[in-house]
């Protein structure tokens, strides 16, 4: 009990949303209402009850009966689908919004990072924005003075530090914003999906900085859709679903559970992939479902090196895409999110065309050339000449070591890399 940083007890948050539209039967009714509504609303306003101009009546619980504890120095990940209540929970922890019921006890200063570069003003220079943003995030001027060089160094925009931020590329703005945030030193850090932005190299730098943060004994609560960074950073994970805690435990267990539950729901058809919003394209073409089958045609996420593996990939396509040529890439990434290899119907010279609004493609890898470890699957599609969809980490799978070469030798991924290559020696 003594080393608790955050204790959440019976937390709930209710939002008012637009209720059913009243149907005006006659013009007279609607005119009468137009005259009486301002008085009704003004009454509510003065009583301090108004929650919005629309007179919202229906309510939903964005969060209901959530309880958990975070110890000092723990890095807690929060995962869940869109609308599961992750952001609401973070907003309560960072005091942006009040809970409707329950309470949170926080021991230590909380720094919240729900957005990169909050309060950046385009007319101000990079230097001025560092000070402004730092103050908004709760740093004192002396603290920013002290860390200024380090911040600029981290951001890598030294050359443009006295240029107004409106002339920055979006990437530069983000880097500068993150650089300020990365130098916050509260005891408790609350972070929303901020790593999803920026280029891959900078993301790695940020993850490194966050890992440093957690090693220095700071408590971190971290929301992400990026299962790889959750796995890399967090000890424990909470899975939220529809506003309540569905499961909590060690990161790997919960992520495995989450990804597998995303694959097989009641109808046997995944909705999770279809609902993801962190994707490219205009949604006329969407990957809806992916599953991995082993040589016995059983759905699995555990596979042995050298065994056969089949990806089942389902997609939906709008009618206007019928007859269009389709190219699909399946890319396999390791846990550091580096691509290891890719398979593609263009590589094999096979031409696909969209012929149905819902369809499933199979891709078989006869002998999986991966060493043991965890890998994620990235899906990418091109329809005609346009990138139609692109989603990272559609699923994770674990490869277990096996006697790939049939010689009793088990290569080690930390020394021998990630792939098996068939080879012949002569001497």
């Amino acid at each position: 009990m003594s080393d608790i940083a955050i204790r959440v007890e019976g937390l709930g948050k209710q939002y008012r949303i637009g209720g059913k539209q009243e149907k005006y039967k006659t013009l007279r009714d609607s005119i009468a209402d137009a005259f009486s509504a301002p008085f009704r609303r003004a009454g509510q306003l003065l009583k301090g009850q108004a929650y919005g101009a629309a007179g919202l009546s229906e309510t939903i619980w964005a969060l209901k009966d959530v309880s958990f504890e975070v110890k000092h120095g723990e890095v807690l990940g929060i995962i869940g689908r869109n609308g599961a209540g992750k952001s609401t929970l973070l907003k309560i922890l960072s005091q942006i919004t009040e809970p409707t019921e329950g309470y949170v006890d926080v021991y230590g200063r909380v720094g919240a990072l729900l957005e990169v570069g909050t309060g950046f003003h385009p007319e101000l220079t990079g230097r001025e924005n560092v000070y402004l943003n730092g103050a908004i995030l709760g740093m004192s001027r002396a603290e920013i003075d002290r860390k200024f060089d380090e911040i600029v160094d981290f951001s890598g925009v030294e050359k443009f530090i006295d240029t107004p931020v409106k002339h920055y590329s979006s990437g530069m703005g983000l880097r500068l914003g993150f650089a300020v945030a990365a130098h916050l030193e509260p005891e408790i850090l609350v972070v929303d999906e901020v790593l999803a932005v920026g280029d891959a190299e900078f993301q790695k730098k940020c993850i490194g900085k966050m890992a440093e943060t957690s090693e220095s004994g700071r408590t971190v609560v971290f929301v992400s859709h990026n299962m790889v960074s959750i796995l890399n950073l967090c000890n424990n994970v909470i899975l939220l679903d529809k506003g309540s805690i569905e499961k909590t435990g060690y990161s790997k267990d919960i992520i495995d559970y989450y990804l597998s539950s995303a694959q097989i729901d009641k109808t046997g058809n995944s909705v999770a992939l279809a609902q993801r919003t962190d994707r490219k394209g205009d949604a006329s073409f969407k990957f809806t479902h992916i599953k991995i089958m082993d040589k016995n045609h059983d759905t699995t996420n555990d596979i042995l090196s050298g065994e056969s593996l089949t990806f089942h990939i389902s997609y939906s396509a709008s009618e206007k895409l019928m007859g269009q040529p389709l190219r699909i890439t399946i890319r396999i990434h390791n846990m550091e999110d580096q691509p290891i290899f890719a398979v593609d119907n263009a590589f094999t010279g096979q031409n696909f065309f969209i012929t149905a609004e819902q369809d499933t493609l199979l891709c078989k890898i006869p002998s999986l050339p991966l060493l043991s470890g965890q890998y994620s699957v990235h899906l990418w599609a091109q329809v005609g000449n346009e990138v139609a969809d692109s989603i990272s980490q559609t699923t994770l799978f674990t490869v277990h070591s096996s006697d790939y070469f049939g010689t009793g030798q088990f290569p080690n991924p930390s020394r021998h890399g990630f792939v098996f290559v068939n080879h012949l020696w002569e001497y």
Partner: protein
Amino acid sequence: MFNDSLPEPQLSSLPHLRIQPSNGWVSLHLKEVWAYRELLYFLTWRDIKVRYKQTVLGAAWAIIQPFFTMVVFSLFFGNLAQIPSDGVPYPIFSYTALVPWTFFAAALGASSNSLVGSANLIKKIYFPRLVIPISSVISGSVDFLLAFAVLLIMMLVFGIFPTANVIFLPFLLLLAVMTSLGIGLWLSAMNVQFRDVRYTVPFITQFWLFATPIAYPSSLIEDDLLRTIYGINPMTGVVEGFRWALLGTDTAPGPIIIVSFLAATLLLVSGMFYFRRMEKTFADVV
């Protein structure tokens, strides 16, 4: 089981905060606003810094507005309508009133829109929300100083020297700040819920301009009691106070100022409590 049983002194010394639903009227937490004074400083500094970016005339705008209003007033009210001006040349009579008035009107406009304009901040980070309207009022002070400098030049031109009462000017300016902030707090909090406020502010400002003795002297009201009641409009106290301190007009502002001060205090305190009460809904609604 709570932190009194903590073994490590280092942990028990960490600040403890309980986040829970609040009900009804909440305390003002002015101490917390004080703790965030650096943020207040930076937000004000940002407002001042970006105010005239990408304008051709820049800070001249701070002078143009009251000065040309003075010219128009002098033409129509001073020359054509022959409105009395307490024995002072009409241009300087009206400009002395327009300087604090312009500050007030700008502060009112800026503060009532401040929360909606900072929606992005409110949704993404916690800090005492009072900081936002306060900084928007304070950032008008630079414009005030510029317009005031022109006033001093005009006084020199007209050969009028300020009276010793000039030491009360900061107090009078404070009265203008209190009034604009008081109204600004009410309006900004309401504006979050009802964007009608945006359309109301220009109307209120115009109405208030004529309800304040700017184009005319309050000495037009001959009854002493009625004139004191006129002080319920706190800007009456400010404007008459400015003339009394700078130009030495003999409308001794004593009772008017006291009434104005009480009215401004009431506005400010009620505005703060209303603001604090509505504060918890800002992030969800704005």
